[in-house]
Structures are given as C-alpha cells and as structure tokens.
C-alpha cells in the first residue's frame, strides 16, 4: 500500500473527509428510517412517532413472515446455485485450456448485454416448458443466471491472481485437480467467493421485476413485490410512509449480513494468503 501520511493534520483531514462522505451516503437511508416512523396524515402512523407503518406492512396480504420467508428461500437458493456454478467455472477459465472456453466466457458476459425486460417473456415461456412456472425454484434459477457474468468474471480473476506455483507444488505432491481446488485454491480465493455470495444475495433479495413477472400466486411473492403493491395507490400516487417502512425492512438483513461478512473480509486480506 502507498506510504501513509502520519502527520496529525493529514489524519484529521482524512477523518473529516470520510465522515462528510459517510453522512452523504447514509443520509437517504436515515431519512427513510425517520420518514417511516414520523406522523404522516393518511398513513398507518397518523400522529406521533411510532411503528404504525410497520404494523400495516406486517398485516398486509399473507403477512410479513410469508413474504420474508419467500425472499429468504429464493436468496439462499440463488447464492448456493451461483457459487456451485461459478467457482468451478472460474477455476476452469483460469487454469485450463479447452475448446470453446473463450466462447463460453463471452456468452456468459453477453447476459449483461441484453436488456433484461427483453428476456422476461421468453423466460416466462421457458419456465412453463420446464414445469417451473410460478415456482421459487424457477425464480432462483433465473436470478442465478443474471448473476453469472459478474460471478464468473470475479472468480476467474480471483483464480488467476493465485500464483501457479501453489498448484504445481500440490500436484507434485500427488493431488488431483479437484484436490488442488478444494484443498489449496478455495482458501486463496475466499475474498472472491465472499464477494460473489454477497452480491448474489443482495441482488436476489431485493429484485422486484423478475419475481413480479415469474411469480403469479400472492402466497409465493417475495417481499419487494408485496411492498410495491402496498405502496401503489390511485392514479399512481405513492404511499410514502409504507415505502419507507418497506425500505427499512428490506435493507435491514442486508446491512446485518454485510456487517458480519466485513470481519471475514478484512481478516482474509490480512492473512497474507495472497502475498507472493
């Protein structure tokens, strides 16, 4: 890392800048939290501060626990699926040569290049053919597909950054390619794995349009769809109080998850496993 200025002036300047930036980034979310509990005429919280909007959210339709559970199930399936597919693929792209390798990589990247609304109708039809229409599994598979460009790219970069000496040493010791992967490389690419898992979770947890189109039963709807339904009033007017409550409920698990993973992240870097 670049040499750090340790002078007191530099340090104060650093912290001032950082705090100002942090406030800027946190402000919209803090406002959402405040707006969800403040008194708003015509909302679930008419007078005084309180959790009226959250109560309204909890009682909507099939109830918050149902929607929450649907979102959680889909998110977990998406994360597992993404990892199971992208980690071996990253290994393959980084360490092996085989016919069609570059073509497969480009095809995977091409997923990013298609406007997702375009794919929704054919995907809907496809899931019908596979008997997966209106199912959480089908939804997870589609969400996983959308994660693959990012995941494959990150995993490939991660594997490529690991010096080949590690592979070769292990193979001299008699390890098969699979053992090289599981015993040596997985640990080395852990930050990449954590990144991929985190982003897969976030994307699938908060996605709105894909579940909207692919899920038709209200009892299988994930949380974002239910929240949007609650907001939309006559003539496109939005119930902002409920929206803010929805934002808080949706964001909270992600915040917690990120805070927990943060510690693993930092430790992974500091362990020096990537030092040459």
């Amino acid at each position: 890392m670049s040499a750090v200025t340790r002078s007191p002036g530099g340090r104060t300047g650093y912290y001032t800048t950082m705090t100002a930036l942090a406030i800027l980034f946190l402000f919209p979310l803090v406002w959402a939290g405040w707006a969800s509990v403040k008194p708003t005429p015509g909302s679930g919280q008419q007078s005084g501060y309180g959790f009226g909007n959250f109560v309204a959210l909890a009682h909507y339709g099939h109830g918050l626990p149902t929607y929450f559970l649907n979102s959680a199930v889909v998110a977990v399936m998406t994360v597992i699926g993404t990892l199971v597919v992208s980690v071996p693929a990253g290994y393959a792209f980084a360490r092996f040569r085989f016919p069609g390798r570059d073509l497969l990589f480009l095809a995977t990247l091409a997923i990013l290049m298609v406007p997702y609304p375009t794919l929704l109708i054919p995907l809907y039809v496809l899931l019908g053919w596979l008997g997966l229409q209106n199912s959480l599994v089908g939804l997870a598979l589609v969400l996983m597909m959308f994660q693959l460009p990012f995941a494959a790219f990150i995993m490939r970069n991660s594997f490529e950054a690991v010096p080949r000496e590690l592979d070769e040493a292990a193979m001299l010791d008699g390890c098969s390619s699979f053992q090289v992967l599981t015993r040596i490389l997985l640990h080395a690419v852990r930050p990449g794995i954590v990144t991929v898992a985190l982003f897969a979770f976030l994307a699938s947890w908060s996605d709105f349009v894909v579940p909207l189109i692919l899920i038709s039963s209200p009892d299988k709807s994930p949380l974002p769809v239910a929240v949007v339904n609650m907001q939309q009033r006559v003539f496109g007017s939005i119930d902002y109080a409920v929206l803010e409550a929805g934002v808080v409920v949706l964001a909270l698990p992600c915040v917690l998850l990120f805070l927990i993973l943060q510690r693993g992240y930092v430790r992974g870097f500091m362990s020096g496993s990537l030092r040459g």
Partner: protein
Amino acid sequence: MRSTRRDRRQLLGMAYATPLAVIVGVFFLVPLALVMWMSLHDWPLLGEPTINLPANYTRIADNSLFVDAVWFTLTYTIIVTVVLFTAAFGLALLVQRHRPGVGLFRTAFFLPGAVGFATASLLFYGLLSRDLGPLNPILSALGIINKPVSWVSGSPNLALASSIGLVVWRFAGFNMLILLTGLQAIPEDVYEAATVDGAGRWQQFIRITVPLLRPTIALVLILMLTGSLLAFDQFYILTNGGPDNSTTSVVMVIVREAFTRFDLGSAAAVSVVVLATLIMFNVLQLQVLRRGDRPEDR
C-alpha cells in the same frame, strides 16, 4: 504421452465449466434465440405470429423517439461512467488503509447497495421531491439555494444530474468493493521494494497499482459502460423519461414497444440491435484492456 495429458486437462476443464454451460445455455441462449425469432415476426399477444422480415428492423430508423434515445443514452453513459468510476476508485483508495474505523466507513459507502434499485429510485423520488422531500428545506437552511428547486424534472440538466446522483449513490459502494478486492490483492512487498528504490507515491500508483489492477478495472468498466447503455430503472421511475423526453433511454423505448404498444416483434428487433452493438463494443473493450495481461498458460 503429452497429448494424453493435454486431452485430460481439456476434459477436466470442460467438466468444471459444464454447470455454467448448462445454465447459460438453457436459461439464456434459448430465450435469446426466441427473442431473435420473435424479431422476425409480427407477434401478437394471443394468436399466431406472421413473418414480417425486415419490417421490424427497417422501422427502427423511423422511430424518432429511438433515435433521440440513442444520443441521450450515449451521452449519459460517458458522463456517468466517468463520474461513477472516479467516485468508486476514490473511495476504494480512501478505505484501503487500515485505520481505526475504516470498516465503518466502508459499510456506510456500501449500504445503499442493500436497497433494490427500483426501491432506491422511488426513495430518491421522494427525497428529491420539490415540495415533499427534505432536500430543499435543508439546502435553503444552509443558504445554498434561495427557492425550492425541482430536482427531478425542473430541466433536462437537473433531471440528468438527479439520475446520475442516484446511480452514484447506489453503485459507488458496490464498485468500490470490487476495486478494493483488486487493490488488496497487490502484495505489500512490491510497494515496499519500490519505496526503497526511491519511487514516490504518485509513481507507485501509476507504475504499480494501475497496471496490476487492470483486470479489475476491466470488470468495473465493462459493468459500468454496459449497465449505463442499458439504463432503465432510474429513468423509468425517477424522471419518467422527462422532462419532455429529455431523459428517455434506449431500453425505455424497448419497454414501451413491448408493454405499451404491445408490439413484441418490434421490441425484440430493437433488443437484437442493442445486443449486437454491445457485443461488438465489449469484445473490443476486452481486447484493449486485457492486452498483454493474460498470465501465460504453461
């Protein structure tokens, strides 16, 4: 002997890549083929489609909304990529130092990523609302403005600035994290050796950091450029493509064809054109950014 070993390596590689190939093939290539097929037809919602090649494609040039959208999207892409990349890279450089409390700052920057983009857009709509949001009262109190501003639709430039603000807020942290992963992968020793050799901070940055960061920068730029060219949610929700169609993007035109005009063939044709453009563009970009950078396959 050697060729058997190489064949075995090939087979192994293919085996590890198979799950990816299956998912990409079934869930992406098949629907994509369907889209291409649809682009050749007049495709009613219910009922049988009829071939109308090349009408869907030739009509694209006549669609003035589309042509304006292309110009806007290109302009937007350039501006937002520069701003977002600078912000993300700046943040990454700031948080890579192990100072006390840096974890908290990192979390603060990344937190907006915890909110879905559609919801974030709605959030910003309320935040920036001229009469109901907190931004105008706060800025007035600080003396920065002296009458309420309509951030989202007061003028094309304001609408554009609001959209860029939303995107930077939402995605700076995300991209910061990717760049951070790359930065952290550069070993300390390299910098220490350079310092011993007398290289200053700026030289170290240009000669060590940036080159070693190339694959990561490549990923970030591809994501940003492609994402901006395909921008949709922020305009659909925040500005409604306005004011007066000044922030209407290409994908908005596609969605309008499909779900307002119910002309699925036309929407498919525009999508195919967009995809072809992006593929060419990204192939070029990948070659430029990865040139001379691939670790040699031994």
